[in-house]
C-alpha cells in the first residue's frame, strides 16, 4: 500500500469527528472519499497532512510510519493538497501562489522571471493563459480554483488530495482537471478525491470509501456500487425525492412580479427582457462566463445597468445599488460564499440573522427569542449539522457553513431572491432538502432566480429556464421543454455555431 491509515481518531469539543477510521490508498488509484456534510472527510484530510493533530491512530507511507506536523512537512513527503475552504491568497500574485515553497532561485534569491515562466508553463497544462504576475484576487473563483489544483498537483510526488476541487468549475474545466488526475494516476500516484458530485465519482474513481458520523462505513470498488447503494451508505437511509415540479404550461401563467425590459450593460451583459411571475422559479443555465452571475449582479445593483427598466406592480424599481435592491425586497446569495460569506468567529445564530439585522438597522436589535427561533428554524429546515446554534460557524464542516450562509438570505424573506449556485458543496441528502425548501418558499409567494451549473438541479426546481451564451440570453425553455436534453442542446449550440 502506498498510504495506510489505521484507527485514525480526532475529537473536537463536543464532537467525535473521526472514530477509528481505516483507509488504504494504493499507488495508481483514484480513491473517492464520500459522506454527508459533517461526516469527517475534511478532518481526515487535515489530520493526514498535519493541519490538525490527530488524537490517535497511525499513518504509514510505503511501509514507513509518517507523522507530518505541518502542511509543509506533508508536502516534503510528497503529499499535495487542495483544501476545501481555501482559495489560496488573493493578495499574492498567481505565480507566488503557485510556486510558494518551491520558488526557483538565483544566487539564493527568488528569481521572479523564472518563477513566472514556470507558473505560466504549469497553468498552460490546464489551458489557462493568464498574466501570472497579477494578483490572484483579480481573477474569477474558477481560475483561482484551477491555480489551487495546479499548485497541489505540482507538489504531489506521491499522493494528491483533492477536497471538493471542482465545485466552481464548468464541464470543460472539470474535464481538463480529470485528464491531469488520470495522467498522475497512470504515473503511479495515489489520489484522494472528495466530491458531492456523484457523477464525477463514477467517472473518475477506482474505489470508494464512505464515512458517516466520523466512522468508516465501507470501502468498495466504484464499479461494484450503484448510485442508490452509494447514497444509502452515505445517508444511512434512502433518499427521499422531492416531488417533481408541476410546471405551468406557459410563462405568463402566474401574475407578474417583475417586468424587466432591455436591462443591460456594455461588456457585461447584452440587454435582455425577462418577466418573473409571482411564486415562480426561473433558472439560469449556461457555461461559466456566459453571463449568469452578471445577470444577477445587474438585478441586484452590484453593477448598475446602463439601459432598461425593471417594473413591478407599483412602477419602476430602483436598482442602482445593493442597498436600493434590498430596500425593494430583493435578496442575493452570492456564489462565492466560501470567502465572502461567513464571519468565522460568530455563532451560527449570529451569522444567520446578520443580513436581517443589517436591514433593520443596528439600533433596533432583533429580540433574542426571535433570533433563537429563526436560527433553530433554519438549522432544522436546512439540516445544518451542529450541536447547537451558539457554535462558532467556523467549526462547522464546509457544507454546513454553506447552508448557514444560505439560511441568512432565506431568513430575509425577500419577495425576489437570487441564488447563485445554492447547492454547491452540499451533500445529496441536503441537496434535495434545499430544492424542496425553495419550492416551499415559492408556494408562499416568493419568486426565485436560481443560477446553477447542475442541469439536473435546474430541471428539478425551475418553472422556466433561461439559457445564456456569450453574455446574452439566447433561449427560454418553458413547460414541457424544461428537460436536461433541451437545456444541454441550447447551451451547446455554441459549438455548432462556431
Amino acid at each position, binding site marked *: 500500500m502506498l498510504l495506510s491509515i489505521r484507527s485514525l481518531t480526532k475529537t473536537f469539543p463536543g464532537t467525535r469527528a473521526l472514530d477509528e477510521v481505516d483507509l488504504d490508498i494504493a499507488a495508481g488509484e483514484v480513491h473517492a472519499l464520500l459522506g454527508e456534510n459533517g461526516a469527517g472527510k475534511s478532518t481526515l484530510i487535515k489530520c493526514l497532512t498535519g493541519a490538525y493533530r490527530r488524537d490517535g491512530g497511525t499513518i504509514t507511507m510505503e511501509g514507513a510510519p509518517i507523522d507530518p506536523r505541518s502542511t509543509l512537512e506533508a508536502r516534503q513527503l510528497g503529499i499535495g493538497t487542495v483544501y476545501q475552504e481555501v482559495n489560496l491568497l488573493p493578495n499574492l500574485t498567481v505565480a507566488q501562489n503557485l510556486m510558494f515553497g518551491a*520558488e526557483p532561485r538565483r544566487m539564493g534569491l527568488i528569481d521572479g522571471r523564472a518563477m513566472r515562466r514556470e507558473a505560466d508553463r504549469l497553468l498552460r497544462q490546464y489551458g489557462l493563459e493568464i498574466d501570472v504576475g497579477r494578483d490572484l484576487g483579480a481573477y*474569477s473563483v474558477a481560475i483561482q480554483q484551477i491555480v489551487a489544483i495546479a499548485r497541489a498537483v505540482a507538489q504531489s510526488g506521491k499522493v494528491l488530495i483533492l477536497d471538493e476541487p471542482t465545485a466552481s468549475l464548468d464541464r470543460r474545466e472539470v474535464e481538463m482537471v480529470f485528464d491531469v488526475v488520470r495522467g498522475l494516476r497512470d504515473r503511479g500516484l495515489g489520489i484522494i478525491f472528495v466530491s458531492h458530485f456523484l457523477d464525477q465519482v463514477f467517472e473518475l474513481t477506482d474505489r470508494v470509501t464512505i464515512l458517516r458520523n466520523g466512522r468508516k462505513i465501507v470501502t468498495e470498488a466504484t464499479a461494484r456500487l450503484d448510485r442508490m447503494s452509494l447514497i444509502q451508505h452515505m445517508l444511512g437511509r434512502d433518499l427521499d425525492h422531492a416531488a417533481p415540479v408541476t410546471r405551468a404550461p406557459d410563462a405568463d401563467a402566474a401574475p407578474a412580479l417583475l417586468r424587466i425590459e432591455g436591462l443591460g450593460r456594455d461588456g457585461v451583459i447584452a440587454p435582455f427582457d425577462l418577466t418573473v411571475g409571482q411564486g415562480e422559479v426561473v433558472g439560469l443555465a449556461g457555461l*461559466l462566463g456566459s453571463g449568469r452571475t452578471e445577470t444577477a449582479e445587474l438585478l441586484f445593483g452590484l453593477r448598475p445597468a446602463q439601459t432598461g427598466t425593471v417594473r413591478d406592480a407599483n412602477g419602476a424599481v430602483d436598482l442602482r445599488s445593493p442597498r436600493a435592491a434590498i430596500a425593494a425586497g430583493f435578496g442575493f446569495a452570492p456564489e462565492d460564499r466560501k470567502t465572502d460569506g461567513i464571519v468565522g468567529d460568530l455563532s451560527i445564530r449570529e451569522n444567520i440573522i446578520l443580513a436581517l439585522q443589517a436591514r433593520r438597522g443596528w439600533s433596533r436589535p432583533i429580540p433574542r427569542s426571535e433570533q433563537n427561533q429563526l436560527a433553530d428554524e433554519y438549522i432544522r429546515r436546512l439540516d445544518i449539522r451542529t450541536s447547537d446554534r451558539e457554535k462558532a460557524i467556523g467549526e462547522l464542516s464546509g457544507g454546513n457553513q454553506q447552508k448557514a450562509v444560505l439560511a441568512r438570505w432565506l431568513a430575509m424573506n425577500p419577495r425576489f431572491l437570487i441564488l447563485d449556485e445554492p447547492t454547491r458543496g452540499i451533500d445529496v441528502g441536503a441537496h434535495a432538502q434545499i430544492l424542496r425548501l425553495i419550492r416551499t418558499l415559492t408556494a408562499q409567494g416568493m419568486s426565485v432566480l436560481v443560477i446553477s451549473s447542475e442541469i439536473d438541479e435546474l430541471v428539478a426546481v425551475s418553472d422556466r429556464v433561461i439559457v445564456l451564451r456569450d453574455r446574452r440570453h439566447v433561449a427560454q425553455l418553458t413547460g414541457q421543454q424544461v428537460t436536461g436534453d433541451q437545456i444541454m442542446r441550447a447551451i451547446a449550440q455554441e459549438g455548432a455555431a462556431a
Partner: protein
Amino acid sequence: MNTRALPLYATIVIFLLAWLLSWMQFPNILSTRVIGNLLTDNAYLGIVAVGMTLVILSGGIDLSVGAVIAFSGVLIAVLLRDTNLHPLVVFAGVLALTTAFGACMGLLIHRLAMPAFIVTLAGMFLARGAAYMLSIQSVPIDHPFYKTLRDAYYLMPGKGRLTLIGVLMLAVVALGMVLAHRTRFGTSLYALGGGEQTARLMGVRQGQTTVLVYAFSGLMAGLSGVVFSVYTSSGYALATVGTELTAIAAVVIGGTLLSGGAGYVFGTLVGVLTMGLIQTYIVFDGTLSSWWTKIVIGLLLLAFILLQKGLLTLSGRSLRKGAA
C-alpha cells in the same frame, strides 16, 4: 497592473508634486545640499520604518521601536562613557540585544496568540523604563570614532554631503526590498498578512516568520539607535518619543495597507522623504510654525487611508466579477 500598487504610484506622484511646488517657490530645494540633509536628517526614521514595513506587511505592528531607539542610544552613550570598549564592539552588542528583544516579543505574540499591539506596547514601556534606569540625563558622546563617522561623507557636486548614515539608510531600504520581494521570508510575510489560516495551510511557517520579523524590527530599531546617537552625539532617555507612530505614518503614506498583506518597502522610503520634504519646506518658509508639519502629515495620512479603503472596495468588486 495590480490595484495594490496604486497607492505606491499615488505616493510617488504626490512626492514629485510636492517637490515641484516647493521648487517653484524655493528653487534651492533641489540642491544637493538639501537632498543630502534630507537623507541625513531622516536616516534613523527611514531605517526603523523599513523594519516597521515588514512587520505591518505580516499583519502585525511594533510599538516598541521609538523606545528601543532611545534605549540603544543611552546604552551606547553610557557604555562609551564608563568602559574602554570600541564603539564598533558596543554597536554589535546593542544590535544583538535589540534583535533578541524583538525576537522575544515575536515569540510571545506567536506562542500566546496575543495581539502584537499589546505585546509591543509592553515592550515599549520596558525599553523606555530601562533607558531611564541607565540615565535620566542626556549623556554626551565625545569618542573620537564618532567624529570619524560624522566626517565620513561624500561631497556631491553642489556641496551637498552624502553622509554615512544617509547611505546606510538607503542600503537598509535596499535590503528591505530584497527581503520583501526576493525571499521566501518576504512572501511568507505577505501571506500571513493576507490570511493566517490560508497561509498556514499553504505551508507558511507562522512561528518562525513571526519571530523573525519582530527580530528584524528590533535589529532595525537598534541600528536606528546607533544612527541617532551618531546624528546627535548623545544618548537621551527622552529622545524619539512617538517615533513608532511617525514610522507607522511613513509606512502608510508609502502605500502599505495597515491591515497587512499589501505594500512596498520602496513606498516607505518615499513616505519618509515626503514627510521630510514637508518639514524642509516649513523650515525654508520660516514663517510657518513647525506644527504645520504634523497637520499636513495628518491630512496626508487621512487621504491615504481613504484611498486604500476605496481601492479595497474596488478590488473586492473586481474579485466578484468575471465568474458567471
